[in-house]
């Protein structure tokens, strides 16, 4: 834990960590050792839980309004001013509904799945640095922790799909497993590029690195961000890759049989996961709470949440824009497109770090050069590999042929006869 800053009285709400630090140092003065741990755990846990719950509730409204704007309509605008009470109405409705239990299903697993699904979604939030010194648990292996915790989701979703004893759910569960396993690989490789440069897997360490180097890792590792963003979108089942709950194909995938608040939990998990994606991207690639010195005037946690929402907006935008890929196309995309690019990215990144360390170059000189090199490389690779791997759609006609004259059958004569 960082010591409380010299010019930060506890009531300086620009940075909430001051108040907490003050409280904890006061506690350690008066109470036994373990009291500090207990109190900080309770404060941090409650704060994170409340934050996650609040965003899940707020995002119902945010997502519906933003998608509505994209779809030339207004969205919920009846409950409360600008429809702000819509999430509450939604939740009330969901809670009142009967929670159905499929008769031939596996009741214990069926009931456990939505609750367990919330676990990983919540646990991920423990390691994010919301501001300077505002980390609940500053794990040394933060990046790996995030990957590990999110990978548990696979099993939970499989439990949901399997225990429903519904064929659509089963198809959804199988799709979830196939897709999550495939996209895990490029995702981990993409994050490896970040760890390579930052030299630490601790999330606050990565933010501190970006702070010290005065550069966003997004600029140094643009390709890693693109790969991470695509993979994470697939992992949380958002639209271009939402085959696991593809509405038009398998009704709702693994949560077809869920109703009432159990469905609500899955829905909330989806929203929280989308936010978690934004938080990971903001921390690893966009400097977390740091914004080129602006964090001196604006509280770090506000900057962080703002960045998270910007990335979340990107997700909503994608959802409102793109159709869905087919499962074999998605698999091919992961293995044939993302994986090679991720490997190349790692190779180039390792070379650059080696150069940097070996010749003891100054960071201020090297990092801009690297970012220019990597950015151009990313554009080159993505465009080139796309040209090389993708089917050449642009050579195929994308407009219909026009025929003006066709043979006219005798006017008035019933050519086909009575049907």
């Amino acid at each position, binding site marked *: 834990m960082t010591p409380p800053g010299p010019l930060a009285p506890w009531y300086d709400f620009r940075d909430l960590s001051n108040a907490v630090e003050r409280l904890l140092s006061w506690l350690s003065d008066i109470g036994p050792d373990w009291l500090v741990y207990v109190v900080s755990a309770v404060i941090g846990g409650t704060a994170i839980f409340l934050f996650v719950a609040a965003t899940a509730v707020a995002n119902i409204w945010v997502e519906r309004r933003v998608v509505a704007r994209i779809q030339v309509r207004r969205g919920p605008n009846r409950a409360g001013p600008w429809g702000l009470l819509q999430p509450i109405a939604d939740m009330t409705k969901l809670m009142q509904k009967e929670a159905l239990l499929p008769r031939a299903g*596996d009741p214990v697993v069926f009931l456990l799945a939505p609750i367990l699904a919330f676990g990983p979604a919540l646990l991920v939030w423990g390691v994010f640095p919301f501001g300077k010194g505002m980390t609940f648990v500053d794990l040394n292996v933060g990046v*790996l922790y995030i990957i*590990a915790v999110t990978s*548990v989701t696979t099993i939970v979703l*499989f439990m949901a799909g399997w225990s429903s004893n519904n064929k659509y759910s089963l198809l959804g569960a*199988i799709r979830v497993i196939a897709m999550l396993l495939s996209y895990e690989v490029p995702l981990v490789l993409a994050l490896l590029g970040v760890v390579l440069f930052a030299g630490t897997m601790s999330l606050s360490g990565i933010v501190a690195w970006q702070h010290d180097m005065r550069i966003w890792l997004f600029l140094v590792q643009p390709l890693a961000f693109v790969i991470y963003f695509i993979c994470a979108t697939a992992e949380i089942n958002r639209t271009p890759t939402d085959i696991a709950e593809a509405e038009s194909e398998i009704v709702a995938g693994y949560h077809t049989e869920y109703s009432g608040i159990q469905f609500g939990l899955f829905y909330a998990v989806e929203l929280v996961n989308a936010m978690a994606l934004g938080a990971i991207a903001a921390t690893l690639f966009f400097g977390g709470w740091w914004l080129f010195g602006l964090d001196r005037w604006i509280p770090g946690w506000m900057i962080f949440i703002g960045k998270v929402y910007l990335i979340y907006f990107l997700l909503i935008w994608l959802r409102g824009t793109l159709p869905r890929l087919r499962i074999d196309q998605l698999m091919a995309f992961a293995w044939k497109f993302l994986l090679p690019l991720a490997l190349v990215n790692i190779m180039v990144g390792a070379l650059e770090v080696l150069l940097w360390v070996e010749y003891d170059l100054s960071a201020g000189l090297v990092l801009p050069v690297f970012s220019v090199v990597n950015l151009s490389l990313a554009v080159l690779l993505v465009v080139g590999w796309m040209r090389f791997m993708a089917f050449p759609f642009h050579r195929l006609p994308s407009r219909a042929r026009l025929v003006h004259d066709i043979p006219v059958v005798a006017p008035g004569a019933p050519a086909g006869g009575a049907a």
Partner: protein
Amino acid sequence: MDEPGVVAAFWVLTVTAVGSAVMVAAVRNLLHAVLFLVLSFVGVAGLYITLSADFVAVVQVLIYAGAIAVLMLFAIMLTPRAARDNADGIFWAPALVLAGLMATTIGLIATRTEWAVSDRGPFSQTASAIGEALLDPFVLPFEVASVVLVAAMIGAIVIVREE
């Protein structure tokens, strides 16, 4: 290791890991057995954290719970419903005796031996230490492990592939 938090965590995690391992043997449904196995893996990962081995703990969750258990689920899905029970075979009684003997032996050895326990305390940085160990003294096993993984991957594909 006598902080009350660590002691409490140890007992809770032990009960989780061992209890769900027992349930793996006891439940009739193979899918439930796999889910209990995952719980047991997570419990063991928690024990790793009490041992200040955070890297191994995270890797445990990532590989066992995230990959191996999922592979097992997949294997169960690919075999028919008839093969989804977790029944004991005819040798369950001798197996039980043997397992009991094994547990007793290990327990006796563990408690009777005078271990050269050091008091260096918990590790502070395991990930970087493991990384250095992997690439310096253990570089050959590390390379061999990668070859093993590739061989296993190709082997699995060849075995499952239909001609």
